[in-house]
């Protein structure tokens, strides 16, 4: 398998689906004119192959990028609406939540909305408060939506292809700091990663670490560090947050008895809460230590490096919490 970046992998996945189905098209700002930074251009050169009717260079009109994509999906095409990042996607929430998510249902199944809303998440060095947000948890709360957060180039490609073929609206959240990440990517044009299936990124027996998006990378680093102190952590990459693979998580926790869920987003109200709550409800009996979450402090993302570092969750946080859980001496552990 060839090595390529996450950005190149998703671009390849999009190109393959556009070749496969003439009704697949993309719209967004600067899609055909190129980004100012070429490293993160998931549309590079696609205009040359597919032309301006399928790689649509949009005005700066987020509401209408999303809203027109909804209408175009209802009318039988498969648009990929690129809002660039959730930071700008916040300007199109109404069209996504009030329209895309509800149309199939409120019209009694008369319509489908095969739309992919691309909105990257993540903190990028020095991007500060308005360009560093991670709100994947919001869309888990919205019936009608599917939420995808790929952690690797291969999953970026395979999940985007599945999202495009899906007949319901998918919120596809890449991570800004992963676009440059390299990995092996299957070339097979039918390399589809199923929506809703987790991946065991590292097998282990002492502790289950559930992560998604860039946090998977940090969780795997942490697991290696933990191995050096004799703690064998299992890392589960959820890949899809709705539906999320609770069977895979339950199976792992039944084995390890310990669950740690680190997330990049602000802890309060984040998706980690959904995961630990679900496990605490279903497996309260088998836990050897209380479930634990790690997440960013509830503050906007600051600019200066020492302040941004204060916001960021790192492998160090994961290692420290994991160690406290395994060394845990509470009543549960004594069982």
């Amino acid at each position, binding site marked *: 398998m060839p090595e390529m970046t996450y950005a190149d992998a998703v671009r390849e996945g999009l190109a393959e689906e556009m070749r496969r189905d003439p*009704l697949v*098209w993309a719209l967004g700002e600067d899609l055909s004119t190129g980004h100012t930074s070429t490293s993160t251009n998931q549309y590079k050169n696609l205009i040359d192959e597919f032309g301006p*009717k*399928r790689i*649509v260079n*949009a*005005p700066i*009109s987020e*509401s*209408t990028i*999303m*809203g*027109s*994509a*909804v*209408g*175009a*999906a*209802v*009318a*039988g*095409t498969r*648009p990929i609406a690129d809002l660039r990042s959730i930071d700008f996607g916040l300007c199109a929430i*109404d*069209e996504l939540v*009030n*329209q895309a998510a509800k*149309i*199939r*249902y*409120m*019209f*009694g*199944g*008369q*319509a489908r909305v095969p739309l992919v809303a691309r909105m990257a998440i993540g903190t990028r060095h020095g991007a500060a408060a308005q360009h560093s947000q991670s709100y994947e948890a919001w869309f888990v709360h919205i*019936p*009608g*939506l*599917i939420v995808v957060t790929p952690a690797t180039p291969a999953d970026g490609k395979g999940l985007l292809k599945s999202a495009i073929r*899906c*007949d*319901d609206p998918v919120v596809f959240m890449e991570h800004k700091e992963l676009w440059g990440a390299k990995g092996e990517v299957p070339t097979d044009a039918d390399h589809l990663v199923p*929506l*809703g299936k987790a991946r065991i990124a590292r097998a282990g027996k002492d502790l289950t670490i559930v992560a998604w998006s860039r946090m998977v990378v940090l969780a795997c680093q942490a697991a290696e560090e933990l191995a050096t102190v004799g703690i064998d952590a299992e890392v589960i990459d959820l890949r899809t947050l*709705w*539906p999320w693979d609770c069977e895979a998580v339950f199976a792992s926790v039944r084995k390890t008895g310990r669950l740690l869920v680190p997330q990049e987003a602000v802890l309060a109200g984040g998706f980690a809460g959904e995961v630990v709550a679900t496990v605490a409800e279903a497996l309260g009996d088998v836990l050897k230590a209380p479930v634990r979450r790690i997440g960013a402090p509830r503050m906007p993302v600051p600019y200066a490096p020492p302040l941004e570092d204060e916001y960021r969750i790192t492998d160090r946080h994961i290692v420290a919490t994991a160690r406290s859980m395994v060394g845990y001496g509470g009543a549960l552990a004594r069982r």
Partner: protein
Amino acid sequence: MPTATSAGTERTNQTERIFGMFKTMLLIRAFEEAAHQMLTEGLVHGSVHQSIGQEAISVAVCGNMRRDDLIQSNHRGHAHAIAKGANPTAMMKELLGRVGGTNGGKGGSMHIADFSVGMLGANGILADGMPLAAGAAQAVALKGEDKVVGVFVGDGSTNRGPFYESLNWAKVFHLPLLIVCEDNGYASTTATRSVTAGGGPAVRARAFDIPVVSVDGNDLLAVDAAAAELIERIRNGGGPQFLHAATYRLKGHVSRDPGMYRPKGEVEERWDHEPIRRCEAWLVGQGVALNEIEAARAAAQAAIAASVAEARAAPFPDPKVAYADVQDVGAPSCPK
């Protein structure tokens, strides 16, 4: 814009066409009076927005469209739906939340939709129909179809951002889109002009180089002539067109709204200009007999009475239906 409504040679055809549209207006009027009756009886569960007094716009616009053309409605959608060909019985069942409703009981009045006739749905979020319709028009263009997409927007809704973004969008991408502004002077309890700067919707549309025709929306023949021309332009690749139709909402804004915010006497005065009686006068002038007209009115009322009877008799949906059509992957599971 051609204003002649009955060029001698075509007179009978034209009279027949208008008489047909007149019958559709009667059907809409009867439907909405019945819907309000059902509301007062507690059989309609949500809110009801009536178009009484505005029927000519829907009827003339949709009357100039093909069945496979598409329309995007707003919160006030009964007239749009019936004019496009939706079945009033299925609609009444939807308002009552019964099996056989257009939306299977999931939507109600404010989400009334019938995709089988190209009616893409009433919508509870103002002005959102604009980008949705622009997108539908873009899909039509991408597929190389020759359909026209129409969107209905209220005067008050033209103060929302998506209205402008979509005007720009439609023009930039030269989309087959007819924007129909039903300007009834009010936005809920507020007189629209009190919160609207400049010359209003028509002036705003022209700022995007979108051709605009303004008509008396209560004059069925005027709307018919304008709609015919604009739709033909669009079908011939002329890009987006804007129809600004002045009208008046004769009933409250929603459900039981008494409409106290309107100057005394205004409503009464406006009843004299409502489209059905104006069209009726024209038909009589064209030699249509009064008893024919009365027969049409009776037929419309009978048809709706039958719809109401059938809807009242229809069962409520099985609760399990609630779990269907959320999404394919990740759908909620129905408890046993």
